[in-house]
Every structure is written in structure tokens, then in C-alpha cells.
């Protein structure tokens, strides 16, 4: 498009605007909802603007304050960053629309400032080109996420938040130690410069171990997932949506970036294989536990553990399949973000309506909320990888990579994970169609909350038909192509 678009520093707006908005909400609590909605909408528009910019001019590079790396801080955006930003914006928009009807005044005043700061931190993480900046963003994300988890108080929520805080701090600490080792060993914090300088030394291996451990803990990869279900299941529904859809993806994104640029060329084989193994275990273990849950939100939380496992299957597959496996992972990140947010919001509607989330008793509430049930069903179809949906495209690409390489072990895991997902989704839906008498009075659910959930779910389904344009945007900057060769 015209020059007017390319002049606007969208990336900087994406970081500063929510930050300013968050402070504004803190200062003027009365205007918090309006201000928050405005900020999130503006951020969404900025992502579109940035997308245009990338499509026109290719990769975006900006030296903050005019000081480029290695001295200053760089902002960097390619197709992969754009995909993450877009996921954040879409989920953020849905959740924000939802929140307007969900919280009481008191909670709402607390929610908006923290959420906007979290949004700013997420955006800056996806735009950072420097591992220390990423640490700062990660820490900010972790702390604000914990704050949101504990938002409404209550014993379960506080307990979950406490465990979450410990995991988040431990994770960042390990990551920070890794960063220190890298800086000490190779004298830079900029990812691209590090990529050129790193050598196969013990320092690199130690850094790899620390960074991976820290990020895996934050991403809740099996067996480091212990903190996730209680935190995600006991937080208020819109917070669960943000945590499951976005926050765990942030640390995954960092791992993916560092892996692609720094670690894969030197340490590809064995570590990648190990990550794949853990991913496979996560798929199976998370799915089985999800099937066994009796509370809806716990079921959805364990489903997150399982779906995160799929992302790690790409690490070993990418050693020879390269781009196609990474594309699959990226597509799964995006579609899981939308679908999982929709699921948690739908669960929130059900809880709001019936006052509980016991699955067997859902029949008394589900059938009176057709839009919410529809949202849950569509999101569930995407999670289970049924066509047409974003989840189907992602799993199809992953399956293709696995079959092409003859990795039948992963093929089996992918297929069984899909079947188990279908089981836990339909376990809930089965009750939606059973008729039962209404035992207790229910609270009406505002239309905005029903439509927020449904829109996100429809988005997850539509992704199944938009693979070409999305993959086209993802290819900007060739994030996966630069170093795809194995060890």
C-alpha cells in the first residue's frame, strides 16, 4: 500500500500503546473498560498495519533510539512474529469483549491494568531481537499472569497462583542464567549476532540446558506441566483463556526462535529427539488425564497440556522435514490459541449460568445456551483436528512430515491424540443434548459473552480454509528456512 502505511512505526505502537493504556486504566478506574477496549482494538489495527508493512517491505527492523545492535536494542518482526502478534490480537480482542460483561466493577478495575501490561509485554516479546529484552518481557508476562490468576482471591485461585508464581520465577531464573552464559561466552545479546558467533563449547551446552529447562517449565511441557492445570482451571475464565491461549505460547515462541537461530545448527539431533519424545508423552498423558476429569475447566486445562505436546513433535521432525514441520507447529499455535480461548470462554459462560462446572451436571445448563455450546463444539472440532479447521490443517501438515519420514511412532501419537481429544470434547457435548429438569435458578449470560466465545471458535474453523494466505504471511522473512539443516 501507500507510503503512509510504511512510515508509521506500528511495532512501537504495539508495545507502547497497551503500556500507556494500562497506566491510564490504573489512574482512571472508572474509564478502565472503555479505555481498555479502545487500546485492544487499536492494537489489533496496528497488527494489521504491521502485516501490511511486512508484506510490502519484507522483514521489519528497527534500532530503538538509533543505537543498533550490538550496543542498542533492536526490534525485529518477520512472518513468525506477525503470526504470534496476530494470535495475541485476536484472542485479546475476544477476551476483552468478553470481560466487559464478565467481571464485577471491583474485579474489572483490577483486571484491565494488568491485562494491558501483559499485552504490552507479549507484544514486545514477539518483537524482540535480543535475549535480555526477551528475559525482561518474560518476567513481566509471568508476574502479570500470576496477578491475573489470583485476581478474584479464593483459596483454590491463590493456591494455583502460588504454584504458578514459583514455576514462573524458577523458569525465568534458569533462562536468565542461560542468557548470562551466552553473553559471557560470546559477547552479545542479539540473536542474529549470537547465531554467527556461537561455537560448540561447554558454555553453549550449559546455556542450552538452562534456557531449555527454563522455557520448558514455562511452556508446561510434560513432565514440567504440574503447575498448569490448577492455575489455568482456577483462574477466572477470561484469564484462563489468556493463559492457555497466549502466555504458554510466549515461552514456546522464545524457545523456537533460539532453537532455529542458535541451537539447532549445533545441537539439533539428540536434543530435538528428546523434545519430541517429551512432546509425544505430553500428548498422550495430557489427553488421557483430560478424558478422566470431572470438572470442565480442568478438562480444558489438561487438553492444553496435550496440545502443547504437539508443538514439540516438530523439533525432531524438522531435522529433515525442515520448513513443513515448523509451519505445522506455527499453524497449530495459532489455531490452538483461538480454539482454546473459545473453549475457556464457553466454560466461563456455563459456570456463570449454572454456578458450577461439573461435567455430569452440565445437562441442566448446556442446552439453554446454544451459542455457547456451539462455540465449545466448534472449538473442540478444531482441537481434535477434525476438518475443516485450523487444527486439521496443522495436524495434517505435521502428519505429512511424520509419514514422509516414516516416523510411524509419531504418526501413532498424532492419531491417538486426535482420537482422545474427540473423546473428551464429545464427553462434554454428549450432555448438551440430554434433557433434564432445571433444578436451580440460573443467571442470564450477556450476549456479548456468548458471541465472544463463538467468534473465536468460528475463527478457529475458518483458519481451516485460510491456510494459503496465512502460510504466505508466515513465510515473510523466511524464519524457518535460514538454518534448516541438521547437525
Amino acid at each position, binding site marked *: 500500500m501507500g507510503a503512509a502505511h510504511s512510515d508509521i512505526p506500528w511495532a512501537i505502537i504495539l508495545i507502547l500503546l497497551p503500556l500507556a493504556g494500562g497506566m491510564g486504566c490504573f489512574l482512571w478506574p472508572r474509564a478502565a473498560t472503555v479505555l481498555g477496549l479502545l487500546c485492544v482494538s487499536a492494537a489489533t489495527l496496528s497488527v494489521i498495519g504491521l502485516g501490511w508493512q511486512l508484506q510490502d517491505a519484507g522483514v521489519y527492523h528497527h534500532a530503538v533510539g538509533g543505537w543498533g545492535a550490538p550496543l542498542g536494542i533492536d526490534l525485529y518482526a518477520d512472518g513468525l512474529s506477525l503470526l504470534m502478534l496476530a494470535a495475541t490480537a485476536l484472542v485479546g480482542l475476544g477476551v476483552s469483549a468478553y470481560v466487559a460483561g464478565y467481571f464485577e466493577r471491583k474485579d474489572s478495575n483490577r483486571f484491565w491494568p494488568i491485562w494491558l501490561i501483559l499485552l504490552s509485554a507479549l507484544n514486545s516479546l514477539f518483537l524482540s531481537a535480543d535475549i535480555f529484552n526477551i528475559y525482561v518481557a518474560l518476567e513481566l508476562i509471568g508476574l502479570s499472569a500470576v496477578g491475573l490468576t489470583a485476581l478474584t482471591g479464593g483459596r483454590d485461585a491463590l493456591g494455583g497462583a502460588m504454584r504458578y508464581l514459583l514455576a514462573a520465577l524458577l523458569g525465568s531464573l534458569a533462562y536468565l542464567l542461560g542468557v548470562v552464559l551466552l553473553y559471557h561466552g560470546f559477547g552479545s545479546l542479539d540473536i542474529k549476532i549470537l547465531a554467527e558467533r556461537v561455537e560448540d563449547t561447554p558454555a553453549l551446552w550449559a546455556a542450552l540446558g538452562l534456557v531449555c529447562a527454563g522455557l520448558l517449565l514455562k511452556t508446561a511441557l510434560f513432565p514440567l506441566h504440574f503447575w498448569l492445570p490448577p492455575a489455568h482451571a482456577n483462574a477466572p475464565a477470561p484469564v484462563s483463556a489468556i493463559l492457555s491461549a497466549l502466555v504458554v505460547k510466549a515461552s514456546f515462541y522464545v524457545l523456537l526462535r533460539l532453537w532455529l537461530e542458535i541451537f539447532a545448527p549445533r545441537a539439533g539431533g539428540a536434543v530435538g529427539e528428546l523434545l519430541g519424545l517429551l512432546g509425544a508423552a505430553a500428548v498422550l498423558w495430557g489427553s488421557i488425564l483430560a478424558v478422566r476429569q470431572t470438572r470442565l475447566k480442568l478438562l480444558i486445562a489438561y487438553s492444553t497440556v496435550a496440545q502443547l505436546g504437539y508443538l514439540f513433535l516438530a523439533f525432531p521432525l524438522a531435522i529433515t522435514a525442515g520448513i513443513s514441520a515448523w509451519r505445522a507447529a506455527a499453524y497449530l499455535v495459532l489455531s490452538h490459541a483461538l480454539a482454546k480461548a473459545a473453549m475457556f470462554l464457553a466454560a466461563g459462560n456455563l459456570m456463570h449460568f449454572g454456578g458450577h462446572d461439573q461435567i455430569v451436571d452440565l445437562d441442566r445448563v448446556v442446552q439453554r445456551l446454544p451459542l455457547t455450546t456451539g462455540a465449545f463444539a466448534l472449538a473442540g472440532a478444531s482441537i481434535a483436528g477434525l476438518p475443516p479447521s485450523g487444527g486439521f490443517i496443522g495436524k495434517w501438515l505435521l502428519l505429512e512430515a511424520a509419514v514422509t519420514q516414516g516416523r510411524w511412532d509419531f504418526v501413532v501419537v498424532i492419531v491417538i491424540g486426535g482420537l482422545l481429544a474427540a473423546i473428551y470434547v464429545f464427553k462434554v457435548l454428549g450432555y448438551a443434548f*440430554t434433557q433434564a429438569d432445571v433444578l436451580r435458578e440460573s443467571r442470564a449470560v450477556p450476549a456479548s459473552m456468548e458471541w465472544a466465545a463463538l467468534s473465536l471458535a468460528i475463527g478457529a474453523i475458518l483458519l481451516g480454509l485460510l491456510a494459503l494466505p496465512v502460510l504466505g504471511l508466515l513465510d515473510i522473512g523466511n524464519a524457518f528456512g535460514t538454518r534448516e539443516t541438521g547437525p
Partner: protein
Amino acid sequence: MNWNSWIPLLVVASSLLPGLVIFGLAEDRVGLRIGLNMGGALVKFALVAWMLWGVYQGHEFEARLALLPDLELVLRAGPVSLLFVTLSTVLWLVTTVYAIGYLEDSPYRSRFFGFFSLCVTATVGVALAGNLITFLLFYELLTLATYPLVVHRGTKAARRAGQTYLVYTIIGGAFLVLGAMWLYTLTGTLEFTPQGFLDGLGNEHRPALTIIFALLIGGFGVKAALVPLHGWLPQAMIAPAPVSALLHAVAVVKAGAFGIVRVIYDVFGVEFSAGLGVTQPLAWLAAFTIIYGSLRALFQDDLKRRLAFSTVSQVSYITLGVAIAGPIATVGGLVHLVNQGLMKITLFFCAGNLAETLGIHKVSEMNGVGRRMPWTMAAFTIGAFGMIGAPPIAGFVTKWYLGLGALDAGQSWVVFVLAGSSLLNTAYFLPILHAAWFREPPPDWPAARDFGGKETAWALLIPPLLTAAMALGAGLLASLPFSPLAWAKLIADRAF
């Protein structure tokens, strides 16, 4: 994109859009809902008639939409697709009328008709799919759209039946995706091609191709109710009668059988699969299913369950005809796709009428019912004789061509299967007919409803009479152009 490429899309949209609107309608907007349903059905009918004429003249109707870098969604109207599209369009029209009459005053009608429309959308999509991935997409959609219909009653039994249905079909779906993916990595295409697209593959791929064939047939066999994958079908009988009618005659079971047809003709190719040695075991399995289904039907007292096992048996005629892999048997198999649909839907409509009007659910309650409901039972009789294979009803045409085709292909054992099956069909249908027409009716019926002077409501009576007439016509007028038989011959001519 020229005008012709829009028509397949419109055919799909003509039930999808009304369905989506119906979801949003309030329960009491009966008139609008009926208008949308019937309007969609009529538009679809007109579009399909137009395509029939066009394909007969040799025109192409094709729509393409990119799905992935080298994978497209394709809707294409060829002779094989049109056979199935026409069947589903016509029977959808009839079933809609029936369902409107049947569900009068019951709750959740908007939900029901919404999913009903989605179900037909998926079936038409399956019929028109021009490659395996499009087929899979609509096939899975069909699973999801029928589930709410199966559990529509909302009872515990319904939920259990729905669960069984899902477990079978979703596992089947996983087999399909796996098979399709494997095939795709070997060939780089999934486009349905007459005589298959595997010719280029060398001998070293034979074991893999055999497994892929098993995966695909296993996946489709679930919906086609091939023994031992048939367990869900009798349970799904819990659904309301129009759903059973649609499930058994058009949508689910037929989609499975149609998938088998596609795999053998347009993916592997008849000669290639015969060369691979996979059609012979399939023929045996189909034959076994035919006999097994009939035997089980013999011992069912519940009328709908008896009909369900009869479906298990009858649908495998299609598989058998295709698996014999000769031109004449092909005609028999394909024409049965239509014939079984017409006859079975008639039988299910009649069973629904008996349940709705008199509360009869069991064969043992049917004594003398022919006197109380002569028109319904007349339609039932035509359907039953058709299933037995008595001339001049449609079922006779099937068995005739299957028998001839088997002899032509040197597989005379099939004739014994056909004879045995006909004998068994007679054994489980004739007692029903005898009881209905010649036994004394009981003093009162289980749960009779009064319809004034008529035997039942018009909307319930006209559909079975219409489909019975069609079943009769498909046999009597088999030699006319555009009859199912003529169309099946056209397909066979192009496939060999």
C-alpha cells in the same frame, strides 16, 4: 470461473445456508422454517436436474478452492457423483416433508432441522467431492452433523447410542486420514481419476498400497456397516424415524458405500486393485456381511432393528458389486446405491408411521395392521418385495445384474450368496407381511392416535407412497434413459 463452476457450490449452499438460518430461528416460527427447508430442497432439486442434463450432454461442472499449497478442495459433477447427488436430493425433499409431519409439536425443532440441513449438505458434498481430501472433509462433517440427530431424543439410551456411533465413526475417520495422507506422500495427488491414479507406482510399493487400501476400506466400511464394523448401526435406531430413514437410505450408510466405490474406481482403479489382489477379500467380506446381516435380521422382534440389520446386509450388495470388478456387476452395485435407498426409505417411513399412529414398535404387534393402515402397509409391501428381489421392483434389477456380472467375471459362488440372501430376506419379510394382511387385528393398538377418517397424517402418508412408487418405477422403467439403471450403465461404460 465461469457459470458452470458455480453450480456445484450452489448445490452445497442450497442446504447449508437455510440450515444456518434455521439454527437462529425461534421455535414457533414454523412457517418460515418450513419455507426455508422446502425452498432449499426445491432449489437444490432444480440445480441437480440442470447438472444431470448438462453432464448427459458432456459438460463439466467443477469448482476449485485452494486448501494448502498443493492441495485443493474440488467439487466436481461427474456421472458417478450425480447418481448419488440425485438420490440424496430427491430423498431429502421427501424426507423433509415427512420430518415436518413427524416432528409436529415436538421440542427443539430448529435444532433438528438445522442439523438435518447440515447433514444433507455434507452428503451432497461427499457426492460431489472431486478428490479424496474434499471427500474426507465432508465425510467428517457428516459424522458431526448426524450426531446431534442420533441423540436428538435426549434420553440416556440416545446418549449411549450417540457415543457408540461416534466411537466407531471417529476411529474410522482417523483410519481414513491416515490412509489418505500415506497415499498423498506416495503419489503427491489425491484427485479422483477414472481408472485410478496409482499406475505410476512400482512393485516395491505393493505392501504399502495394500495397507492403504485396508485403511481406506476400513474407514469407509464403518459407515457402510461392513461386518465387523457394523455395531453402531442397530443402536443408532434410537433416533427419530426420519433420521433413521435418512441415515439408512441416503446419508451415512451410503456415504460409506460411496467411499468404497470411489476408492476402487477412482483412487486405485478397478484393474489396479484387482491386480493388487485386494478386491477378492473385499468381495468375500461383503458376501459374509450380506448373509450375516440377514441372519441377524431374522431374529429381531423390534421392527426398526430388523430393518437395521437388513440394511447391514443390503448395503453390502453395493460393495459386492464393486468388488467383483467386472463391468456388469458394477452396474448392479451402482444401481443398488439408488434402489436400496428408495426401498429402505420406504420401509423406514412405514415403520415410523406405525409407531406414530398406533404405537407399534415390534413385529409381534403387527397382526392385522394392514386393515387399519392399508396404504402404509401397501407401500411397506412394495419395499419388502423389492428387498426380496421380486420382479418388477427395483431390487430385482440389482440382483439380476449382480448375478449376471458374477458369472461374467467367473465368480459363480456369488450366485449362491445372492440366492441364500434372497431366501433369508423372504424369511424375515414374509412373516411380517403375512401377519399384517392375514391375521386378525387385536382389539386395541398399543397407543393409537386419531386422525379423523384418514389412516394417518398426510405428511406421513405421502412420502412412503411416493418412494414406493419410485422403487416400483426404477424397476419397471429401468430401460428408459435417465433411469438409475441407464445411468449406472453410462458410468460402467466410462469406467471400463
